[in-house]
């Protein structure tokens, strides 16, 4: 029988924050915000350092997409595995990797998380089960099926989370992997970050099916999409998928609808023939960071003073990372041969 709520109960129900069913403490929510802010400020600084030629090569910023990485990674346990592509600084920071090691990697220093051998696209930290960082689009997706297979085989209940862009879902290997994951019932969650463009090519010009998550329907896999500009929605969707993977060893394919505010890489313009300035400005209105801050401020979970303190704290962390990277030594010449074989 349906419960009849009194007027008073109804108002109470309606006032409940939208995350009330997720069991997230206020401290956790503040932490979500703080991580997104760290990623944003870290990358803004990285862009400046790139401009000063302290960072070279190809450098892809995550700015605009922070809510996806933070919400998704917050849904994991420490023993779960993560794979990322080349837009990986945000994922690495969300996983709690040391900003100093990430900045030093960008600077090509021996203290970098890949000893300066990889650069921007090759973040890695075995101690955090952060399995990289890959520059070949789509190439890392089957590796995630591999760790999921491995943990299942070994009787562990770890889950693997794999990030990739929507253009990567056009590679054959993506489909090979989804089929395999569904067939073998692997505990893996695929998170496709659909930021609407693969470099300069819009989704509509590159995909026969625009709902990217529906590609998983061919493999009868659990699937869905969420608002990737909303850290709570990101957490909610990924948590549900991770729980399913952990308890019943079933894969899920999720599509995060998001947007990149910067150019494809540091060497590309923010807009060009492929998208207009107006479009970018319009999208910035749903910037996940101020959007979440406002909500937390309104709900009394965060105060303006706390926000200001956080900015100062993060600024210091980023400064420290840059100083560390700048002062670290270059990899020594002999180092090159050292790690080719075990």
């Amino acid at each position, binding site marked *: 029988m349906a419960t009849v709520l009194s007027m008073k109960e109804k108002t109470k129900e309606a006032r409940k924050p939208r995350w009330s069913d997720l069991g997230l403490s206020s401290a956790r929510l503040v932490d979500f915000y703080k991580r997104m802010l760290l990623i944003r400020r870290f990358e803004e600084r990285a862009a400046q350092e790139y401009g000063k030629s302290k960072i070279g*090569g190809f450098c892809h910023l995550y700015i605009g997409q922070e809510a996806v990485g933070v919400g998704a990674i917050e849904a994991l346990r420490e023993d779960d595995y993560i794979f990322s592509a080349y837009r990986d600084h945000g994922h690495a920071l969300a996983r709690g990797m040391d900003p100093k090691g990430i900045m030093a990697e960008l600077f090509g220093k021996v203290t970098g998380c890949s000893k300066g051998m990889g*650069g921007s696209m*090759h973040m890695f930290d075995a101690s955090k089960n952060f399995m990289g960082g890959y*520059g070949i689009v*789509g190439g890392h997706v089957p590796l995630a099926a591999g760790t999921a297979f491995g943990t299942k085989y070994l009787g562990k209940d770890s889950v693997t989370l794999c990030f990739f862009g929507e253009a990567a879902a056009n590679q*054959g290997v993506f489909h090979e992997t989804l089929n395999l994951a569904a067939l073998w019932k692997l505990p893996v969650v695929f998170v496709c970050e659909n930021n609407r463009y693969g*470099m*300069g090519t819009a989704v509509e010009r590159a995909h026969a099916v625009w709902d990217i998550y529906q590609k998983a329907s061919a493999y009868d896999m659990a699937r869905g999409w969420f608002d990737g500009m909303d850290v709570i929605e990101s957490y909610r969707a990924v948590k549900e998928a991770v729980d399913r993977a952990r308890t019943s060893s079933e894969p899920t394919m999720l599509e995060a609808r998001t947007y990149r505010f910067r150019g494809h890489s540091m060497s590309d313009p923010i807009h060009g023939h492929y998208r207009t300035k107006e479009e970018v400005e319009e999208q910035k209105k749903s910037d996940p960071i101020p959007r979440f801050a406002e909500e937390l401020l309104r709900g009394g979970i965060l105060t303006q003073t706390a926000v200001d303190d956080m900015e100062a704290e993060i600024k210091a962390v980023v400064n420290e990372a840059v100083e560390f990277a700048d002062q670290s030594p270059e990899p020594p010449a002999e180092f*090159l041969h050292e790690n080719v074989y075990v």
Partner: protein
Amino acid sequence: MAFLTYIEAISKGMWEEMERDSSVFLLGEDIGEFGGAFKATQGFLQHFGEDRVIDTVLAESAILGASVGAALAGMKPVAEMQFSDFVTCGFNQLVNNAATTHYRWNIPVPMVVRLPSGAGIHGGPFHSRNPEAWFFHQPGLKIVVPSTPYDAKGLIKAAIRDPNPVLYFEHKRLYRHVKGEVPDDDYVVEIGKADVKREGTDISVITYGGTTHQTLEAAELLRQENDMSVEVLDLRSLVPLDKDAILSSVRKTGKVLIVHEDNLTGGIGAEVAALIAEFAFQNLDAPIKRLAALDTPTPYSPTSEEFFLPNKEKIVNALKELARY
């Protein structure tokens, strides 16, 4: 006559061939609206339209396989790999389908694959490769590696007209750093012909692509400082390989250094060295010497990358050593 950069010369060659032959079309990732990652096809979409300048999906295997198919149907596809590193994702289509079709069925596969390659731009392990040796080993594919704007235009035109699948390796570092005279007229550079880029009598250097320029600089420096006469042979084509040019240069000088930017082991230099040992052994006054990148992945760190790659100083030292022998 125009004074063009290396990349402008490639664009010019493609443009002319597209004007000349309506069966020529371009396909690749971001080559249309974006103008190509390196802007080699900027303005092509606007001029030739989207039927002939095709932005593909991100799927190298499909791009290369569809090119084979289009070639079988009488088209002349020019496919761009955004970086040569990404050809790994379409390997099967080249080494099995493109390379063996004429052998098996006697029908040509007139396709070109453009492969921006090479290190020195801090691209790290997945954006710096020189993967020519993988394909060099596979019969059925032609391979060209221009080093100058003149050769770049002449070879892209020859590649497009060739009835075989041709892999066209273009060095990223040369794109805007190398300029030269390029005739406006409709010339081609014959595939399979090496070119003596500098005449000399003391030592031969056999090289191609990016290292050609470092070798020429080294040769000039050694002339000025040591009065050494170094001959520089630019292979230009790896398949077919110009054996006559290699052997005649070695027979003239008696000493040879082989330089390439790809890593040493199993590289093109190994084959060239074997040829010389087999056919010009009697003419050698010193052991054959090779200089190449180290046998490791390409490091990102600029200082490590410098250590990893061959460069002018290393070529100078190798030549001095050979001279002393």
